[in-house]
Protein backbone atom coordinates (compact mmCIF):
# COMPACT_ATOMS: atom_id res chain seq x y z
CA UNK A 1 0.00 0.00 0.00
CA UNK A 2 1.40 3.40 -0.97
CA UNK A 3 2.06 5.99 1.72
CA UNK A 4 -0.90 8.34 0.96
CA UNK A 5 -3.23 5.33 0.76
CA UNK A 6 -1.92 4.08 4.11
CA UNK A 7 -2.45 7.49 5.71
CA UNK A 8 -5.98 7.58 4.33
CA UNK A 9 -6.67 4.07 5.65
CA UNK A 10 -5.38 5.04 9.11
CA UNK A 11 -7.55 8.18 9.09
CA UNK A 12 -10.62 6.22 8.04
CA UNK A 13 -9.93 3.62 10.71
CA UNK A 14 -9.56 6.28 13.41
CA UNK A 15 -12.74 7.98 12.23
CA UNK A 16 -14.61 4.67 12.36
CA UNK A 17 -13.42 3.99 15.92
CA UNK A 18 -14.45 7.49 17.05
CA UNK A 19 -17.86 7.06 15.37
CA UNK A 20 -18.45 3.65 16.99
CA UNK A 21 -17.41 4.91 20.44
CA UNK A 22 -19.67 7.96 20.04
CA UNK A 23 -22.59 5.79 18.99
CA UNK A 24 -22.14 3.43 21.94
CA UNK A 25 -21.90 6.06 24.71
CA UNK A 26 -25.55 5.70 25.88
CA UNK A 27 -25.31 1.91 25.63
CA UNK A 28 -22.39 1.55 28.02
CA UNK A 29 -23.01 4.62 30.11
CA UNK A 30 -26.50 4.64 31.60
CA UNK A 31 -25.97 7.29 34.26
CA UNK A 32 -28.23 10.18 33.14
CA UNK A 33 -25.78 12.75 34.49
CA UNK A 34 -23.00 11.40 32.28
CA UNK A 35 -25.23 11.12 29.23
CA UNK A 36 -26.33 14.69 29.90
CA UNK A 37 -22.68 15.76 29.63
CA UNK A 38 -22.43 13.73 26.42
CA UNK A 39 -25.50 15.52 25.02
CA UNK A 40 -23.92 18.91 25.65
CA UNK A 41 -20.54 17.76 24.33
CA UNK A 42 -22.14 16.57 21.07
CA UNK A 43 -24.08 19.83 20.95
CA UNK A 44 -20.93 21.91 21.25
CA UNK A 45 -19.11 19.76 18.70
CA UNK A 46 -21.88 20.64 16.25
CA UNK A 47 -22.01 24.31 17.27
CA UNK A 48 -18.25 24.84 17.15
CA UNK A 49 -17.96 23.05 13.80
CA UNK A 50 -20.80 25.13 12.37
CA UNK A 51 -19.28 28.35 13.71
CA UNK A 52 -15.92 27.38 12.24
CA UNK A 53 -17.42 27.34 8.74
CA UNK A 54 -17.81 31.10 9.09
CA UNK A 55 -15.29 32.17 11.72
CA UNK A 56 -12.54 29.70 10.92
CA UNK A 57 -12.64 29.58 7.15
CA UNK A 58 -13.31 33.26 6.45
CA UNK A 59 -11.68 34.77 9.55
CA UNK A 60 -14.84 36.70 10.41
CA UNK A 61 -15.24 36.19 14.15
CA UNK A 62 -18.91 36.28 15.06
CA UNK A 63 -19.66 36.59 18.75
CA UNK A 64 -23.37 36.70 18.04
CA UNK A 65 -24.08 33.13 16.99
CA UNK A 66 -26.00 32.64 20.24
CA UNK A 67 -28.74 34.67 18.53
CA UNK A 68 -29.16 31.94 15.92
CA UNK A 69 -29.02 29.28 18.59
CA UNK A 70 -31.80 30.94 20.57
CA UNK A 71 -33.78 31.90 17.49
CA UNK A 72 -33.73 28.28 16.34
CA UNK A 73 -35.03 27.19 19.74
CA UNK A 74 -37.82 29.79 19.72
CA UNK A 75 -38.74 29.10 16.10
CA UNK A 76 -38.91 25.39 16.83
CA UNK A 77 -41.05 25.85 19.94
CA UNK A 78 -43.47 28.10 18.07
CA UNK A 79 -43.67 25.73 15.09
CA UNK A 80 -44.46 22.81 17.41
CA UNK A 81 -47.09 24.86 19.25
CA UNK A 82 -48.77 26.19 16.10
CA UNK A 83 -48.83 22.83 14.36
CA UNK A 84 -49.95 21.05 17.51
CA UNK A 85 -47.12 18.51 17.36
CA UNK A 86 -47.18 16.09 20.27
CA UNK A 87 -44.12 15.22 22.33
CA UNK A 88 -42.14 12.15 21.34
CA UNK A 89 -39.99 11.50 18.31
CA UNK A 90 -42.15 13.40 15.84
CA UNK A 91 -40.87 16.88 16.79
CA UNK A 92 -37.39 15.94 15.56
CA UNK A 93 -38.80 15.83 12.01
CA UNK A 94 -39.53 19.56 12.26
CA UNK A 95 -36.01 20.60 13.24
CA UNK A 96 -35.13 21.49 9.60
CA UNK A 97 -37.98 24.05 9.62
CA UNK A 98 -36.27 25.81 12.52
CA UNK A 99 -33.04 25.69 10.48
CA UNK A 100 -34.77 27.19 7.44
CA UNK A 101 -36.27 30.02 9.51
CA UNK A 102 -32.85 30.71 11.03
CA UNK A 103 -31.40 30.84 7.51
CA UNK A 104 -33.89 33.60 6.63
CA UNK A 105 -32.86 35.58 9.72
CA UNK A 106 -29.17 35.02 8.95
CA UNK A 107 -29.66 36.27 5.39
CA UNK A 108 -31.10 39.53 6.70
CA UNK A 109 -28.49 40.00 9.41
CA UNK A 110 -25.55 38.79 7.33
CA UNK A 111 -26.44 41.01 4.41
CA UNK A 112 -25.97 44.01 6.69
CA UNK A 113 -23.28 42.77 9.11
CA UNK A 114 -20.98 41.51 6.36
CA UNK A 115 -20.58 44.99 4.99
CA UNK A 116 -18.21 45.50 7.89
CA UNK A 117 -14.91 43.82 8.62
CA UNK A 118 -12.62 42.89 11.50
CA UNK A 119 -13.46 44.38 14.91
CA UNK A 120 -16.50 46.20 13.54
CA UNK A 121 -17.99 42.91 12.40
CA UNK A 122 -17.43 41.41 15.86
CA UNK A 123 -19.21 44.34 17.50
CA UNK A 124 -22.08 44.28 14.99
CA UNK A 125 -22.67 40.57 15.68
CA UNK A 126 -22.71 41.18 19.44
CA UNK A 127 -25.16 44.07 18.99
CA UNK A 128 -27.31 41.90 16.74
CA UNK A 129 -27.42 39.16 19.37
CA UNK A 130 -28.63 41.56 22.05
CA UNK A 131 -31.23 42.95 19.64
CA UNK A 132 -32.61 39.46 19.07
CA UNK A 133 -32.56 38.85 22.82
CA UNK A 134 -34.47 42.11 23.40
CA UNK A 135 -37.02 41.17 20.75
CA UNK A 136 -37.51 37.78 22.42
CA UNK A 137 -38.02 39.64 25.70
CA UNK A 138 -40.45 42.23 24.34
CA UNK A 139 -42.51 40.32 21.79
CA UNK A 140 -44.48 38.85 24.66
CA UNK A 141 -47.44 37.75 22.52
CA UNK A 142 -45.18 35.63 20.36
CA UNK A 143 -42.38 34.40 22.61
CA UNK A 144 -43.91 34.64 26.08
CA UNK A 145 -41.34 37.32 26.94
CA UNK A 146 -39.75 36.93 30.34
CA UNK A 147 -42.22 34.19 31.21
CA UNK A 148 -40.54 31.99 28.65
CA UNK A 149 -41.74 29.41 26.18
CA UNK A 150 -42.56 25.82 27.05
CA UNK A 151 -42.02 22.84 24.80
CA UNK A 152 -43.98 19.60 24.86
CA UNK A 153 -42.32 17.29 27.40
CA UNK A 154 -41.24 13.94 25.95
CA UNK A 155 -42.92 10.98 27.64
CA UNK A 156 -39.69 9.11 28.27
CA UNK A 157 -38.43 7.74 31.56
CA UNK A 158 -35.63 9.52 33.40
CA UNK A 159 -33.09 6.82 32.57
CA UNK A 160 -33.81 7.04 28.87
CA UNK A 161 -34.69 10.73 28.55
CA UNK A 162 -31.27 11.93 27.39
CA UNK A 163 -30.61 9.18 24.86
CA UNK A 164 -32.75 10.41 21.92
CA UNK A 165 -31.36 13.91 22.40
CA UNK A 166 -27.83 12.56 22.46
CA UNK A 167 -28.33 10.86 19.11
CA UNK A 168 -30.07 13.93 17.67
CA UNK A 169 -27.15 16.12 18.75
CA UNK A 170 -24.68 13.54 17.45
CA UNK A 171 -26.44 13.52 14.09
CA UNK A 172 -26.25 17.32 13.94
CA UNK A 173 -22.56 17.18 14.85
CA UNK A 174 -21.99 14.64 12.06
CA UNK A 175 -23.94 16.75 9.55
CA UNK A 176 -21.97 19.86 10.55
CA UNK A 177 -18.70 17.98 10.18
CA UNK A 178 -19.68 16.56 6.80
CA UNK A 179 -20.66 20.01 5.51
CA UNK A 180 -17.48 21.55 6.92
CA UNK A 181 -15.37 18.81 5.30
CA UNK A 182 -17.10 19.27 1.97
CA UNK A 183 -16.72 23.04 2.03
CA UNK A 184 -13.04 22.78 3.02
CA UNK A 185 -12.23 20.78 -0.10
CA UNK A 186 -14.47 22.73 -2.50
CA UNK A 187 -13.70 25.66 -4.72
CA UNK A 188 -16.03 27.64 -2.48
CA UNK A 189 -13.93 26.70 0.56
CA UNK A 190 -10.76 27.77 -1.17
CA UNK A 191 -12.41 31.13 -1.81
CA UNK A 192 -13.31 31.41 1.90
CA UNK A 193 -9.72 30.72 2.92
CA UNK A 194 -8.53 33.31 0.42
CA UNK A 195 -10.91 35.85 1.99
CA UNK A 196 -9.47 34.97 5.41
CA UNK A 197 -5.94 35.67 4.18
CA UNK A 198 -6.56 38.85 2.17
CA UNK A 199 -10.07 39.87 1.19
CA UNK A 200 -9.07 42.65 -1.21
CA UNK A 201 -6.66 40.37 -2.99
CA UNK A 202 -9.39 37.72 -3.19
CA UNK A 203 -11.69 40.28 -4.82
CA UNK A 204 -8.93 41.19 -7.26
CA UNK A 205 -8.71 37.59 -8.46
CA UNK A 206 -12.43 37.21 -8.93
CA UNK A 207 -13.68 35.78 -5.63
CA UNK A 208 -17.22 37.17 -5.03
CA UNK A 209 -16.36 37.85 -1.42
CA UNK A 210 -19.69 39.18 -0.19
CA UNK A 211 -21.65 36.28 -1.70
CA UNK A 212 -19.19 33.73 -0.35
CA UNK A 213 -19.16 35.24 3.14
CA UNK A 214 -22.94 35.48 3.22
CA UNK A 215 -23.27 31.87 2.07
CA UNK A 216 -20.87 30.67 4.77
CA UNK A 217 -22.66 32.81 7.37
CA UNK A 218 -26.05 31.43 6.41
CA UNK A 219 -24.90 27.79 6.35
CA UNK A 220 -23.24 28.27 9.72
CA UNK A 221 -26.30 29.98 11.22
CA UNK A 222 -28.71 27.40 9.81
CA UNK A 223 -26.84 24.56 11.47
CA UNK A 224 -26.62 26.47 14.76
CA UNK A 225 -30.38 27.17 14.57
CA UNK A 226 -31.15 23.47 14.12
CA UNK A 227 -28.98 22.58 17.09
CA UNK A 228 -30.70 25.31 19.11
CA UNK A 229 -34.04 23.76 18.21
CA UNK A 230 -33.01 20.37 19.61
CA UNK A 231 -31.64 22.11 22.68
CA UNK A 232 -34.97 23.86 23.29
CA UNK A 233 -36.84 20.58 23.08
CA UNK A 234 -34.28 18.98 25.40
CA UNK A 235 -34.55 21.56 28.15
CA UNK A 236 -38.35 21.86 27.49
CA UNK A 237 -38.47 25.49 28.60
CA UNK A 238 -36.60 28.56 27.38
CA UNK A 239 -36.56 32.24 28.17
CA UNK A 240 -34.58 35.03 26.44
CA UNK A 241 -31.50 35.27 28.69
CA UNK A 242 -31.17 31.50 28.78
CA UNK A 243 -31.74 30.69 25.10
CA UNK A 244 -29.86 33.67 23.70
CA UNK A 245 -26.94 33.46 26.08
CA UNK A 246 -23.72 35.35 25.21
CA UNK A 247 -21.77 32.66 27.08
CA UNK A 248 -22.89 30.08 24.52
CA UNK A 249 -21.50 32.23 21.71
CA UNK A 250 -18.26 32.88 23.56
CA UNK A 251 -17.83 29.24 24.58
CA UNK A 252 -18.01 27.88 21.08
CA UNK A 253 -15.55 30.50 19.85
CA UNK A 254 -13.15 29.50 22.66
CA UNK A 255 -13.51 25.85 21.69
CA UNK A 256 -12.62 26.57 18.08
CA UNK A 257 -9.62 28.68 19.08
CA UNK A 258 -8.44 26.01 21.51
CA UNK A 259 -8.79 23.13 19.06
CA UNK A 260 -7.60 24.89 15.93
CA UNK A 261 -9.21 27.73 14.01
CA UNK A 262 -10.03 26.95 10.40
CA UNK A 263 -9.31 23.25 10.67
CA UNK A 264 -11.81 20.42 10.30
CA UNK A 265 -11.14 18.62 13.58
CA UNK A 266 -10.06 21.57 15.73
CA UNK A 267 -13.61 22.48 16.81
CA UNK A 268 -14.28 18.84 17.71
CA UNK A 269 -11.16 18.69 19.83
CA UNK A 270 -11.93 22.01 21.52
CA UNK A 271 -15.50 20.97 22.35
CA UNK A 272 -14.47 17.55 23.67
CA UNK A 273 -11.85 19.15 25.93
CA UNK A 274 -13.81 22.16 27.17
CA UNK A 275 -17.42 20.99 27.51
CA UNK A 276 -16.92 18.05 29.91
CA UNK A 277 -14.39 20.18 31.81
Amino acid sequence: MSSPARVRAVKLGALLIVAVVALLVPVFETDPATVNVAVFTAMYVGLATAWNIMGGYTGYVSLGHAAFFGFGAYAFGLVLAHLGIQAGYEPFLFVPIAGALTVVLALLIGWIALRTRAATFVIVTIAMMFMIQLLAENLVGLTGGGSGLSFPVPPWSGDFFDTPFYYAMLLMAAISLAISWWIRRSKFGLGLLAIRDDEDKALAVGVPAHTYKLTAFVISAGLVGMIGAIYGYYVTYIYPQYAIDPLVGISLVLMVFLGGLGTLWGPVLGAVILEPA
Partner: protein
Amino acid sequence: MSLLEVDALSKHFGGVTAVDGCSLSLQLGSITGLIGPNGSGKTTVFNLITGFIARDTGDVRFKGESITGLGPNRIYGLGIGRTFQLARIFPRLTALENMLVPVRRSGVRALFSRGQWHDEKDRAMEMLAAMDISHVAGLLGGSLSYGQRKLLELAAVMMARPQLVLLDEPAGGVNPALVERIGEHILELNRQGVSFLLVEHNMPFVMGLCQQIVVLHRGAVLAEGTPAEIRGNPAVLDAYLGS
Protein backbone atom coordinates in the same frame (compact mmCIF):
# COMPACT_ATOMS: atom_id res chain seq x y z
CA MET B 1 -8.76 48.37 -31.72
CA SER B 2 -9.15 50.03 -28.33
CA LEU B 3 -9.29 47.54 -25.47
CA LEU B 4 -9.65 49.94 -22.55
CA GLU B 5 -10.82 53.52 -22.62
CA VAL B 6 -10.62 55.77 -19.60
CA ASP B 7 -12.64 58.91 -20.10
CA ALA B 8 -12.28 62.02 -17.94
CA LEU B 9 -11.89 60.05 -14.73
CA SER B 10 -11.78 62.03 -11.50
CA LYS B 11 -11.43 61.19 -7.86
CA HIS B 12 -11.22 63.40 -4.80
CA PHE B 13 -10.35 62.37 -1.27
CA GLY B 14 -11.73 65.19 0.83
CA GLY B 15 -9.99 68.29 -0.44
CA VAL B 16 -7.27 66.37 -2.25
CA THR B 17 -7.67 65.77 -5.97
CA ALA B 18 -6.06 62.40 -6.62
CA VAL B 19 -7.19 61.98 -10.22
CA ASP B 20 -8.25 64.96 -12.27
CA GLY B 21 -9.99 64.30 -15.57
CA CYS B 22 -7.65 61.49 -16.60
CA SER B 23 -8.26 60.03 -20.06
CA LEU B 24 -6.29 57.32 -21.77
CA SER B 25 -6.78 54.59 -24.30
CA LEU B 26 -5.12 51.17 -24.47
CA GLN B 27 -4.80 49.24 -27.68
CA LEU B 28 -5.38 45.50 -27.87
CA GLY B 29 -2.08 43.64 -27.58
CA SER B 30 -0.15 46.63 -26.27
CA ILE B 31 2.11 47.18 -23.32
CA THR B 32 1.49 50.64 -21.96
CA GLY B 33 3.42 52.32 -19.18
CA LEU B 34 1.78 54.68 -16.70
CA ILE B 35 4.44 56.82 -15.08
CA GLY B 36 4.58 59.89 -12.92
CA PRO B 37 6.05 61.23 -9.70
CA ASN B 38 4.98 59.81 -6.36
CA GLY B 39 1.46 60.96 -5.55
CA SER B 40 0.55 61.66 -9.17
CA GLY B 41 -2.42 59.28 -8.97
CA LYS B 42 -1.16 56.17 -10.78
CA THR B 43 -2.30 53.60 -8.23
CA THR B 44 -5.58 55.49 -7.76
CA VAL B 45 -6.18 55.18 -11.51
CA PHE B 46 -5.58 51.42 -11.14
CA ASN B 47 -8.00 51.25 -8.24
CA LEU B 48 -10.62 53.17 -10.21
CA ILE B 49 -10.26 50.97 -13.29
CA THR B 50 -10.47 47.76 -11.27
CA GLY B 51 -13.41 48.89 -9.16
CA PHE B 52 -11.64 49.06 -5.80
CA ILE B 53 -12.75 52.64 -5.31
CA ALA B 54 -15.69 54.51 -6.80
CA ARG B 55 -15.00 57.33 -9.22
CA ASP B 56 -16.46 60.81 -8.75
CA THR B 57 -16.89 61.48 -12.47
CA GLY B 58 -15.84 59.91 -15.74
CA ASP B 59 -16.21 56.50 -17.30
CA VAL B 60 -14.18 53.36 -17.92
CA ARG B 61 -15.00 51.16 -20.93
CA PHE B 62 -13.57 47.72 -21.56
CA LYS B 63 -14.07 46.33 -25.06
CA GLY B 64 -16.57 49.11 -25.67
CA GLU B 65 -18.74 48.35 -22.61
CA SER B 66 -18.85 50.56 -19.55
CA ILE B 67 -17.50 48.83 -16.45
CA THR B 68 -18.03 51.80 -14.16
CA GLY B 69 -19.72 50.78 -10.92
CA LEU B 70 -18.81 47.10 -11.14
CA GLY B 71 -17.01 45.44 -8.24
CA PRO B 72 -13.42 44.15 -8.49
CA ASN B 73 -14.45 40.50 -8.79
CA ARG B 74 -16.87 41.28 -11.64
CA ILE B 75 -14.20 43.30 -13.43
CA TYR B 76 -11.73 40.45 -13.05
CA GLY B 77 -14.38 38.14 -14.47
CA LEU B 78 -14.65 40.36 -17.55
CA GLY B 79 -10.95 39.92 -18.23
CA ILE B 80 -9.03 42.60 -16.33
CA GLY B 81 -6.49 41.28 -13.83
CA ARG B 82 -4.25 43.27 -11.57
CA THR B 83 -1.31 42.97 -9.24
CA PHE B 84 -0.47 45.19 -6.28
CA GLN B 85 2.37 47.54 -5.48
CA LEU B 86 3.60 45.24 -2.70
CA ALA B 87 3.22 41.64 -3.86
CA ARG B 88 0.03 40.28 -2.32
CA ILE B 89 -0.52 36.59 -2.13
CA PHE B 90 -2.46 34.36 0.27
CA PRO B 91 0.16 33.55 2.93
CA ARG B 92 -1.63 30.60 4.54
CA LEU B 93 -2.38 28.88 1.23
CA THR B 94 0.21 26.93 -0.70
CA ALA B 95 1.59 28.39 -3.89
CA LEU B 96 -0.52 25.88 -5.84
CA GLU B 97 -3.66 26.89 -3.93
CA ASN B 98 -2.78 30.53 -4.63
CA MET B 99 -2.86 29.60 -8.30
CA LEU B 100 -6.24 27.87 -8.01
CA VAL B 101 -8.12 30.65 -6.20
CA PRO B 102 -8.47 32.79 -9.36
CA VAL B 103 -9.87 29.92 -11.42
CA ARG B 104 -13.34 31.01 -12.31
CA ARG B 105 -16.15 28.68 -11.35
CA SER B 106 -19.27 30.43 -10.28
CA GLY B 107 -22.66 29.75 -8.77
CA VAL B 108 -23.80 26.46 -7.35
CA ARG B 109 -21.00 24.63 -9.17
CA ALA B 110 -18.44 26.50 -7.09
CA LEU B 111 -20.17 25.36 -3.92
CA PHE B 112 -20.40 21.73 -4.81
CA SER B 113 -17.33 21.10 -6.91
CA ARG B 114 -13.94 20.14 -5.59
CA GLY B 115 -11.37 22.86 -5.09
CA GLN B 116 -8.64 21.22 -7.11
CA TRP B 117 -9.47 19.71 -10.48
CA HIS B 118 -6.75 17.87 -12.26
CA ASP B 119 -6.83 19.96 -15.43
CA GLU B 120 -6.67 23.17 -13.39
CA LYS B 121 -3.85 21.77 -11.29
CA ASP B 122 -1.94 20.82 -14.43
CA ARG B 123 -2.39 24.28 -15.85
CA ALA B 124 -1.34 25.88 -12.58
CA MET B 125 1.79 23.76 -12.48
CA GLU B 126 2.55 24.74 -16.10
CA MET B 127 2.20 28.41 -15.19
CA LEU B 128 4.45 27.98 -12.16
CA ALA B 129 7.00 26.19 -14.31
CA ALA B 130 6.88 29.00 -16.87
CA MET B 131 7.75 31.39 -14.04
CA ASP B 132 10.49 29.03 -12.82
CA ILE B 133 8.85 28.54 -9.42
CA SER B 134 7.24 25.12 -9.78
CA HIS B 135 9.50 23.86 -6.99
CA VAL B 136 7.59 25.99 -4.44
CA ALA B 137 4.14 24.70 -5.41
CA GLY B 138 3.64 22.89 -2.11
CA LEU B 139 5.03 25.65 0.12
CA LEU B 140 2.89 28.14 1.98
CA GLY B 141 2.77 31.53 0.34
CA GLY B 142 4.01 33.17 3.52
CA SER B 143 7.26 31.23 3.39
CA LEU B 144 8.23 32.44 -0.10
CA SER B 145 10.83 35.09 -0.81
CA TYR B 146 9.64 38.47 -2.07
CA GLY B 147 10.82 37.70 -5.59
CA GLN B 148 8.97 34.39 -5.58
CA ARG B 149 5.87 36.18 -4.35
CA LYS B 150 6.11 38.66 -7.23
CA LEU B 151 6.33 35.82 -9.73
CA LEU B 152 3.55 33.87 -8.02
CA GLU B 153 1.28 36.91 -8.05
CA LEU B 154 1.87 37.40 -11.76
CA ALA B 155 1.36 33.69 -12.49
CA ALA B 156 -1.82 33.51 -10.40
CA VAL B 157 -3.44 36.53 -12.03
CA MET B 158 -2.99 34.81 -15.41
CA MET B 159 -4.97 31.72 -14.34
CA ALA B 160 -8.30 33.11 -15.50
CA ARG B 161 -6.78 34.10 -18.84
CA PRO B 162 -7.33 37.86 -18.54
CA GLN B 163 -7.04 39.98 -21.67
CA LEU B 164 -5.66 42.95 -19.82
CA VAL B 165 -3.40 42.96 -16.77
CA LEU B 166 -2.62 46.01 -14.68
CA LEU B 167 0.78 45.63 -13.06
CA ASP B 168 1.55 47.95 -10.16
CA GLU B 169 5.33 48.25 -9.93
CA PRO B 170 6.21 44.74 -11.15
CA ALA B 171 9.93 45.53 -10.80
CA GLY B 172 9.64 47.22 -7.41
CA GLY B 173 11.76 45.78 -4.61
CA VAL B 174 13.34 42.96 -6.60
CA ASN B 175 16.94 42.41 -7.68
CA PRO B 176 18.12 43.34 -11.20
CA ALA B 177 18.31 39.73 -12.38
CA LEU B 178 14.71 39.13 -11.37
CA VAL B 179 13.63 42.42 -12.95
CA GLU B 180 14.99 41.10 -16.22
CA ARG B 181 13.13 37.80 -15.80
CA ILE B 182 9.87 39.56 -14.97
CA GLY B 183 10.30 41.66 -18.11
CA GLU B 184 10.81 38.51 -20.18
CA HIS B 185 7.69 36.94 -18.70
CA ILE B 186 5.64 40.03 -19.49
CA LEU B 187 6.90 40.04 -23.08
CA GLU B 188 6.13 36.33 -23.45
CA LEU B 189 2.60 36.78 -22.13
CA ASN B 190 2.18 39.77 -24.42
CA ARG B 191 3.20 37.62 -27.39
CA GLN B 192 0.42 35.25 -26.31
CA GLY B 193 -2.06 38.12 -26.65
CA VAL B 194 -2.25 39.64 -23.18
CA SER B 195 -2.25 43.43 -22.99
CA PHE B 196 -0.57 45.22 -20.10
CA LEU B 197 -0.85 48.55 -18.36
CA LEU B 198 1.98 48.95 -15.91
CA VAL B 199 2.95 51.47 -13.28
CA GLU B 200 6.67 51.53 -12.70
CA HIS B 201 9.42 53.80 -11.41
CA ASN B 202 12.25 51.81 -13.02
CA MET B 203 12.67 53.91 -16.15
CA PRO B 204 14.96 51.58 -18.13
CA PHE B 205 12.46 48.78 -17.46
CA VAL B 206 9.51 50.89 -18.66
CA MET B 207 11.32 52.32 -21.67
CA GLY B 208 12.52 48.88 -22.77
CA LEU B 209 9.17 47.16 -22.36
CA CYS B 210 6.42 49.59 -23.33
CA GLN B 211 5.26 50.62 -26.77
CA GLN B 212 3.27 53.51 -25.36
CA ILE B 213 3.76 55.62 -22.25
CA VAL B 214 1.30 57.87 -20.43
CA VAL B 215 2.66 60.41 -17.98
CA LEU B 216 0.49 61.46 -15.06
CA HIS B 217 1.11 64.63 -13.12
CA ARG B 218 -1.14 65.79 -10.29
CA GLY B 219 -3.81 63.34 -11.38
CA ALA B 220 -4.00 64.51 -14.99
CA VAL B 221 -2.36 63.25 -18.16
CA LEU B 222 0.66 65.41 -18.84
CA ALA B 223 1.89 63.63 -21.95
CA GLU B 224 1.62 60.43 -23.90
CA GLY B 225 3.61 58.91 -26.67
CA THR B 226 6.31 56.42 -27.51
CA PRO B 227 9.25 56.02 -25.14
CA ALA B 228 11.38 58.16 -27.47
CA GLU B 229 8.77 60.91 -27.53
CA ILE B 230 8.42 60.86 -23.76
CA ARG B 231 12.18 61.01 -23.29
CA GLY B 232 12.31 64.14 -25.41
CA ASN B 233 9.26 65.87 -23.99
CA PRO B 234 10.42 68.97 -22.07
CA ALA B 235 7.27 69.10 -19.92
CA VAL B 236 7.88 65.52 -18.75
CA LEU B 237 11.52 66.26 -18.11
CA ASP B 238 10.56 69.22 -15.99
CA ALA B 239 7.79 67.49 -14.08
CA TYR B 240 9.25 64.09 -13.52
CA LEU B 241 12.51 63.00 -15.00
CA GLY B 242 14.43 66.14 -14.15
CA SER B 243 16.54 68.04 -16.59
